[in-house]
């Protein structure tokens, strides 16, 4: 069953009115709750609201901070709505979607959406989570993967990158163009962790390999930090401090053979060179009434360079198999077909698990980016790694 657009359209009916972030670092030196609180206060302030105006909170399932933790810390007296979305990096755009649903159904009026993590000083994604006892079972299916040394997200995406090279002749340099493009955007963004460090193709190609064909600069930055946004109705948004950034449309989606578990079973899908982004794209474009040629700028989920490469195809910016040539031609650079990750992305700004991409999408529509796309009116933001995905289309009011 599919709802018709007329029945349940949320198009342009809600807006992001506030954004806030902490600094991005390798060791924040303070608690998870403090990080979440600081980002939340900054977002609420940016909206011209007070914590007491917030009546809804949406969190990511992998966050250590609970709804009530943050409500208590902020002094929110009465929460009427809360929700969580996951797993992990799939969440951010879908979290905004939860806020939209809550607002349009009358369950909340102003919803705080946040993601906080101490991804470097706390639990590190790059570390194997496998214990030394027996692994797997209980629906995890790790028993088919961990005993063979397949232990981290980077390793699974390496297998996918290798397959893209096999099927389409994609080159290591193609992935390098993505890393270099994101780095160049970070070099103009003082908040980026890689702000002061340039990156050349020689440096990229000679970097130490992590899981071939992926090397050091194909991996995002394990980061401590927090991001938050405030979502409200388009009507209420007019009273906020800054011009509202309309949520043109939001979508979640999965592939036809999603497979169980968090990540490794995705290697059993019919295609491992296609992300659930392809499904999210169909739904989002339909709901937004827009297509890839309408996108002025995109913030593409980049836990690894390869996820950007695959998404360029999934989102229809180029044909299947042609993303390597597309990036080699500079089509993701400023002034080209689709400028991406204009703050440096997860690869060079920081990895707040998809959430900092939403903040940068808002900045682009406001005209506040450090790599501003002139006259940007439509920004695509994606949270589409594995196993399903979500995405937002933001536009100027």
């Amino acid at each position: 069953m599919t709802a018709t657009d007329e029945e349940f359209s949320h198009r342009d009916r809600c807006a992001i009115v506030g954004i806030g972030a902490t600094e991005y670092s390798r060791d924040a030196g303070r608690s998870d709750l403090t990080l979440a609180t600081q980002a939340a206060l900054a977002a609420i302030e940016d909206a011209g609201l007070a914590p007491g105006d917030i009546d809804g909170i949406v969190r990511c399932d992998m966050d250590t901070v609970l709804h009530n933790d943050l409500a208590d810390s902020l002094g929110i007296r009465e929460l009427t709505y809360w929700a969580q979305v996951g797993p992990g990096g799939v969440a951010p755009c879908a979290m905004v979607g939860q806020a939209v649903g809550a607002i349009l159904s009358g369950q909340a009026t102003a919803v705080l959406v946040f993601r906080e993590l101490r991804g470097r000083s706390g639990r590190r994604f790059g570390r194997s989570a496998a214990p030394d006892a027996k692994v797997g079972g209980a629906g995890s299916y790790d028993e088919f993967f961990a005993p063979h040394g397949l232990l981290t997200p980077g390793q699974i995406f390496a297998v996918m990158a290798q397959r893209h090279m096999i099927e389409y002749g994609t080159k290591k340099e193609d992935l390098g163009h993505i890393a270099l493009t994101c780095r160049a955007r970070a070099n103009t963004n003082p908040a980026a962790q890689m702000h002061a460090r340039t990156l050349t193709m020689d440096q990229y190609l000679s970097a130490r390999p992590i899981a071939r064909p992926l090397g050091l600069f194909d991996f995002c930055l394990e980061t401590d930090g927090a991001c938050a946004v405030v979502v409200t109705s388009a009507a209420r948004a007019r009273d906020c401090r800054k011009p509202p950034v309309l949520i043109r449309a939001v979508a979640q989606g999965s592939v036809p053979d999603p497979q169980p578990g968090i990540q490794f079973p995705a290697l059993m899908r019919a295609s491992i060179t296609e992300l659930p982004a392809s499904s999210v794209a169909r739904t989002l474009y339909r709901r937004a009434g827009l297509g890839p040629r309408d996108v002025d700028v995109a913030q593409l989920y980049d836990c690894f360079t390869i996820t950007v490469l695959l998404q360029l195809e999934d989102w229809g910016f180029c044909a299947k198999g042609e993303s390597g040539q597309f990036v080699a031609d500079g089509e993701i650079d400023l002034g080209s077909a689709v400028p991406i990750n204009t703050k440096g992305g997860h690869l060079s700004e920081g990895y707040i698990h998809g959430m900092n991409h939403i903040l940068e999408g808002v900045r682009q529509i406001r005209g506040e980016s450090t790599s501003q796309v002139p006259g940007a009116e439509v920004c695509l933001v994606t949270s589409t790694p594995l196993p399903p995905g979500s995405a937002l289309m933001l536009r100027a009011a």
Partner: protein
Amino acid sequence: MDGTRSARLVPVDDDPDTGGFFEAARRGELVIRECAGCGAVLHLPRAYCHTCGSWAGRWRPVSGFGTLYSWTVVEHQVHPLYPVPYTVVLVELVDVPSVRFVGHVPGAAALVAGQRMQVWFDDTAEVVVPRWRPSR
């Protein structure tokens, strides 16, 4: 292949949905799960067949030959039981190409896409694990 045996993570082998896979491996058999009602392949193994609605499944022995679908040579160590470099292979079954398995090959293996692979049964630890190596 004795030179390739070493301590490794041991899989849970008594899960209701996947235990039969390791039970077969103990007998030296590589099996996949299929629906007893309509024959649909249920991989990764699970109880319910959404094609025909049957809950009756069975373990079907397969030949143990595959082709190399993709791989990664791991160079950055993340677990003490897996010294680098090592290679994680993704193998497509010759009998049932829609079914893939992951395997561990020691070292930085020289591999070519589509090359023939063969299963072997690693009985180093208390649970026998089907592994893959290039076929000779």
